[in-house]
């Protein structure tokens, strides 16, 4: 192309994306001595400096933080969560008019385009996959087998947990592995009560524990001044204490400190350049988001960490004679098997007898009930495959109930300053099966302002998920009722929500043993172009039932280790 500028710097590696996986790739590559170019499509966000709302109280925000009509209009897809467009945090979510995508069927794609990606806004729940998860596809004859087992990834989970700091409680369950954990946050008194009740009401192995979350609960961690959580619950705005893990506070400062990182914000990667003589990639093409200049960068190793959908879109755009349907797409699976977790199902109930109790502090964490379905023996059901876990928690609500029958006056005024009743919510997150029919593809007729094709989604949850939801609701109701909660209401918001809202999109460049049926091998390398590694959620061969990002970190660190070993062999 005529207006393409070729940058002649010889980088050892290029990382695309600075979110959870890109930050880890950058840190590991730089610490292992590789000159690394880190490309990020969004603007710079500096730890602390660029968290403009971190210390604002409700009265400091316009309209108390309620999204303005303009925010709702420009971010109408991001608005679908109901919480991401709050004025204290909407600046970390994309403008849907500027960054459009298309939906054959509704898909909620929640994104942040800036340095740090969604590591700044994530919910920080951090769990490990187990062999039950790695073996499920194989045992059930679903999709393809994972080319990895727990023992392969276990040391890398240890490694990343030690570095970032994850708090929680180990339970010694085989299907829900123990982790390297900092001291757990506290349950509140109502949650303690439910925990005891579950322990005495069930003998099928179900337990309630505190959520495992990437917050420092004791001491400090490496990075840019990372210290202990202050229980302010303003994490999604960026944490001035660096108390939860983000790329901005942890991995990017570590990469920076080596002197090996060149970070280039405003760089939209759109193609990996493939050389058929060497069967390797030679670099990455970008468009500068601001100047619209096109630049080609060269490197020996490429890490795609732009998040599942974006990395898949880059591969699909990387067309060559050898790969007419996108780089690494010999199998035809690239863009397929899109997964997310299904939720918006569970139960709520009122706790009585705790009116004289209240909490101090705002805990940015909830409870967790690990999977207890289809884990063997009497937990097995023939109604659906796989299982689910519960998140949620107990808290005192606001005054609404107390004033429900009051119109106005001094009595109402008195009530609105008091805490409301205690309520317990059990919110289930279930595993979704990989399905070739669930996919994304590129629309070359609808281009964005940089002339790049837009992503179209065509996916939905399937029968197994729908069958699972019945149990997700019923078990929540039963656990609360048996524990003596009042006014227990089961809910299933199935019709109204769509895939994507779990914000765990994954699977669109899956790993596998066989190049005919998968895109990546067991080291996260593109089968037929081995110096391209894809380590964001797109590699996931199955979804398990819990929050996945900790796994992206572990697989990224492992893949870098592999890549650097290969690199050193070649350069020896």
């Amino acid at each position: 192309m005529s207006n393409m500028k070729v940058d002649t710097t010889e980088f050892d590696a290029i990382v695309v994306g600075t979110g959870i996986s890109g930050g880890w790739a950058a840190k590991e590559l730089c610490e292992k001595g590789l000159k690394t170019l880190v490309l990020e499509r969004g603007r710079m966000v500096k730890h602390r400096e660029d968290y403009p709302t971190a210390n604002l109280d409700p009265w400091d925000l316009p309209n108390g933080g309620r999204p303005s009509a303009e925010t709702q209009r420009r971010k109408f897809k991001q608005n679908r969560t109901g919480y991401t467009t709050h004025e204290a945090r909407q600046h970390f979510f994309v403008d849907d008019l500027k960054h459009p995508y298309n939906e054959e069927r509704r898909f909620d794609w929640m994104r942040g385009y800036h340095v740090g990606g969604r590591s700044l806004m994530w919910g920080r729940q951090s769990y490990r996959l187990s062999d039950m998860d790695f073996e499920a596809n194989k045992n059930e004859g679903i999709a393809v087998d994972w080319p990895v087992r727990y023992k392969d990834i276990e040391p890398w989970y240890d490694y990343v947990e030690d570095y970032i700091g994850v708090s929680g409680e180990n339970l010694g369950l085989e299907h829900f592995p123990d982790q390297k954990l900092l001291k757990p946050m506290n349950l509140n008194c109502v949650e303690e009560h439910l925990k005891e009740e579950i322990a005495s009401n069930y003998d099928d192995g179900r337990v309630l524990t505190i959520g495992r979350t990437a917050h420092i609960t004791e001491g400090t961690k490496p990075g840019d001044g990372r210290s202990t959580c202050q229980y302010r619950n303003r994490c999604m705005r960026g944490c001035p204490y660096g108390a939860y893990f983000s790329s901005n506070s942890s991995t990017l400062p570590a990469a920076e400190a080596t002197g090996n990182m060149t970070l280039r914000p405003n760089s939209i990667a759109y193609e990996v350049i493939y050389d058929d003589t060497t069967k390797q990639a030679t670099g990455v093409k970008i468009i500068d988001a601001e100047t619209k200049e096109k630049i080609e960068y060269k490197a020996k190793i490429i890490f795609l960490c732009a998040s599942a959908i974006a990395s898949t879109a880059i591969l699909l755009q990387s067309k060559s004679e050898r790969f007419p349907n996108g780089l690494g797409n010999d199998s035809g699976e690239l863009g397929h098997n899109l997964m997310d977790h299904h939720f918006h199902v569970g139960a709520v109930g009122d706790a009585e007898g705790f009116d004289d109790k209240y909490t101090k502090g705002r805990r940015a964490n909830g409870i967790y009930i690990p999977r207890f379905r289809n884990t063997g023996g009497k937990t097995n059901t023939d109604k659906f495959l796989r299982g689910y876990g519960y998140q949620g928690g107990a808290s005192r609500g606001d005054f609404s109930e107390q004033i429900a029958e009051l119109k106005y006056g001094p009595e109402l005024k008195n009530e609105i300053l008091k805490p409301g009743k205690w309520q317990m919510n059990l919110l289930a997150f279930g595993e979704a099966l990989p399905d070739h029919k669930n996919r994304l593809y590129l629309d070359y007729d609808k281009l964005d302002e940089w002339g790049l094709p837009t992503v179209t989604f065509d996916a939905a949850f399937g029968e197994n998920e729908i069958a699972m939801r019945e149990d997700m609701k019923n078990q929540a109701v039963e656990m609360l009722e048996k524990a003596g909660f009042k006014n227990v209401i089961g809910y299933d918001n199935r019709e109204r929500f769509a895939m994507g809202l779990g914000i765990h999109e994954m699977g669109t460049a899956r790993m596998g043993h066989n190049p005919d049926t998968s895109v990546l091998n067991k080291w996260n390398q593109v089968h037929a172009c081995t110096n391209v590694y894809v380590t964001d959620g797109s590699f996931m061969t199955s979804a398990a039932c819990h929050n996945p990002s900790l796994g992206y970190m572990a697989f990224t660190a492992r893949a870098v280790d592999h890549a650097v070993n290969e690199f050193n062999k070649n350069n020896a």
Partner: protein
Amino acid sequence: MNRREALKNLGLATGFVVVTPSLISLLQSCNSAPEGWQPVFFNTDETTFVSSIVDIIIPKTEDLPSASELNVIEFIDKYVAEVLDEQEQKHMRETLAEILNNLKGGAENLDKKTSDDYKAILDKYMLVKGEIDEEREANPPKPWVDHTNVINGTKDYLKPTKNEVLNNLKWLTINAYRTNEQIGENVMPYDPIPAQYTCGDLQELTGGKAWSLS
């Protein structure tokens, strides 16, 4: 449809509402807006009406200011101007006009109305739990069909009933009051950096009040 749902449909759910920081020359008059302040959205009658009912909803008491003393009207006016879209504003204005016509009876303006007249309007049209909104029953929201609106970012606009507008104003008043800086820092217990999470005795922790930050 219950009230909460109605509020949500109207884009006026109950959470997070606040008064602008400017604090307050203490205004004694029961239905006057802050001095020198110009409404962005409300016209004269609307301003008179809203600034009157906010003080009926949250009157002055021995130890705590009334809603108007905390400029709640200014907050509500700005909120309606910035958070509601044009169609929602139009609908709100239409319903407010119906309420105002009722209140005026034959009168030219609201000059002679007393707080009893305002209360009578609230008693008549502002419904609470267990009461049925006949206006809404007669004109129910369309059932949810599919995801088309969500995908396109379009809305099924629903003109609020008198009850819904009055309840919206009630919630806006309460939330504006509760998240006002004065109330949030000095009246309700304020704990910006708790540094811990524990369960404890309500009286010991806050003397029975709710924390201002959540």
